[in-house]
């Protein structure tokens, strides 16, 4: 039971990855433009992130090495620096999008100005990072983000055709590029690089060792499973509400409307609370991921488990990334477009992120008796092949479908 209650790291990492500001709209778009046939892509992505997060958490528990340390060790200086730069660019763009998204959501409550609430959001996130312990951040943002379960309730109350929903989980051959664009995007959203960087560094923050392997499995399977369930729920509810009306959502307000239709104002408020904390969680995931990666690449002392003022380089880089995200968000760039670009263009970086986990997880000298078993090995390499395929397909589909429009 204690193990089950210790899944906040998995929940916040999953929520940050599956239902961040871009995914909230992307999942709704997939429901409105493709409908149930896109559903199967979500579990494909979920199983992939479960496999890799379990592996990276196990590596931390056994070898105490977070993911970017593996990148540095396995790739050497040039390729690891390239991986660092690519991941930092994409993570900071996503961070900016999350801050912009928070501005929009807060403005729906108070209607003052989005720019003003982006400032409020960055100050609130900075205060949470500074004052709350790592476990407190995980629990507040992870568990309050679960208010998004209003979409699970909505997907049931809207009485979908359950036969069609079931068929949606069976992959089908399809000629339309738009279908494949959303399938690839849904799989990739589950595998965003910052999730795995945050998860493995978070495991170090929590001081995992070999006694925590059960906690790691619970986080990987239940935490990411919950994130996947939320993504599926949004897709089903959007198929019911938006597709028949011909609405292609362009803002998170439309995704919130999907919860309002079955439950009225209460549904709307629950959706906003869930969105606020889920997007807040994603903001924290991305800010920490960027700072973790830089510190691990440079060999600095890092982590929230120490006093931030005792690690000035880590603390300054964390503050710098938040400020960079804030500056980008203040230009008025559309956060939805920004994060969707980040998802699609992060796909080519995915192989570089996941390969070191596979190599170290399968290295008996490092992992001893906790080396990858046959199932982890087969699934790990199968997913790595899929990731390489996605890396080739994503930019082409993006161009062919004009960004899914």
């Amino acid at each position, binding site marked *: 039971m204690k193990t089950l209650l210790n899944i906040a790291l998995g929940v916040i990492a999953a929520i940050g990855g599956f239902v961040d500001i871009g995914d909230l709209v992307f999942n709704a778009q997939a429901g409105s433009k493709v409908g149930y046939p896109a559903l199967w892509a979500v579990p494909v992505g979920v199983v992939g992130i479960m496999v890799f997060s379990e592996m990276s958490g196990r590596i931390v528990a056994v070898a105490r090495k977070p993911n970017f340390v593996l990148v540095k060790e396995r790739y050497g200086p040039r390729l690891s620096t390239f991986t660092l730069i690519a991941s930092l660019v994409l993570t900071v763009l996503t961070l900016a999008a999350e801050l912009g998204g928070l501005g929009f959501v807060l*403005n*729906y*409550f*108070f*209607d003052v100005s989005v720019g003003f609430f982006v400032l409020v959001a960055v100050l609130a996130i900075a205060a949470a990072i500074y004052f709350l312990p790592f476990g407190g951040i995980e629990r507040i943002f992870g568990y309050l983000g679960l208010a998004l379960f209003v979409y699970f309730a909505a997907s049931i109350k809207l009485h979908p055709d359950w036969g069609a929903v079931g068929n949606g989980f069976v992959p089908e051959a399809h000629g339309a590029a738009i279908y494949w664009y959303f399938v690839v995007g849904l799989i990739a959203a589950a595998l965003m690089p910052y999730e795995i960087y945050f998860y493995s560094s978070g495991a170090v923050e929590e001081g995992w060792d070999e006694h925590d392997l059960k906690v790691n499995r619970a986080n990987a399977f239940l935490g990411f499973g919950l994130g996947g369930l939320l993504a599926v729920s949004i897709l089903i509810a959007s198929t019911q*509400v938006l597709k028949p*009306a*011909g*609405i*292609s*959502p*362009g*803002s998170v*307000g*439309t995704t*919130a*409307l999907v919860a*309002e*239709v079955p439950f*009225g*104002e209460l549904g*709307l*408020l629950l959706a*906003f609370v869930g969105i606020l904390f889920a997007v807040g969680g994603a903001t924290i995931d991305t800010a920490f991921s960027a700072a973790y990666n830089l510190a691990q690449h440079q060999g600095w002392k890092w982590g929230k488990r120490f006093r931030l003022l005792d690690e000035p380089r880590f603390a300054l880089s964390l503050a710098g990334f938040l400020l960079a995200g804030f500056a980008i968000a203040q230009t008025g760039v559309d956060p939805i477009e920004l994060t969707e670009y980040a998802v699609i263009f992060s796909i080519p970086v995915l192989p570089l992120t996941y390969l070191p986990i596979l190599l170290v997880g399968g290295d008996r000298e490092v992992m001893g008796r906790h080396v990858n078993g046959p199932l982890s090995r087969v699934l790990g390499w199968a997913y790595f092949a899929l990731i390489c395929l996605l890396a080739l397909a994503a930019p082409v589909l993006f161009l062919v479908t*004009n960004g899914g*429009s």
Partner: protein
Amino acid sequence: MRPEELARSIKSLESSAADGALMAREVARDRTKATFARAHARELGEDVDHEAEKLNDADANGEVAARKAAAVELAGAISQALGQIQTAPSSESEGRSAGDALTRLGDRASRLSAGL
């Protein structure tokens, strides 16, 4: 402007009208939050105005030009109906009226893009 570009642009107007109509129905039934209705109507209105500007700036010939002009006029009407929600986000009667208007305008957009 090619016919498929115009079709995409009109589809976007149709989507905004349908989105606005859905929200207007919630306003009419007093099931929403006024600040949300106002802010979301403003967002949709800005999207529609931006689409109208793009349409206005695009060069087109023949049948496409005629439909493009109709689409610009349609965008103006959708923007006006969304403005009704923005002005009175708590009024059930305004919500009903805006919802009816946006539903009609969405249907008009659908007919306009047919065959492009």
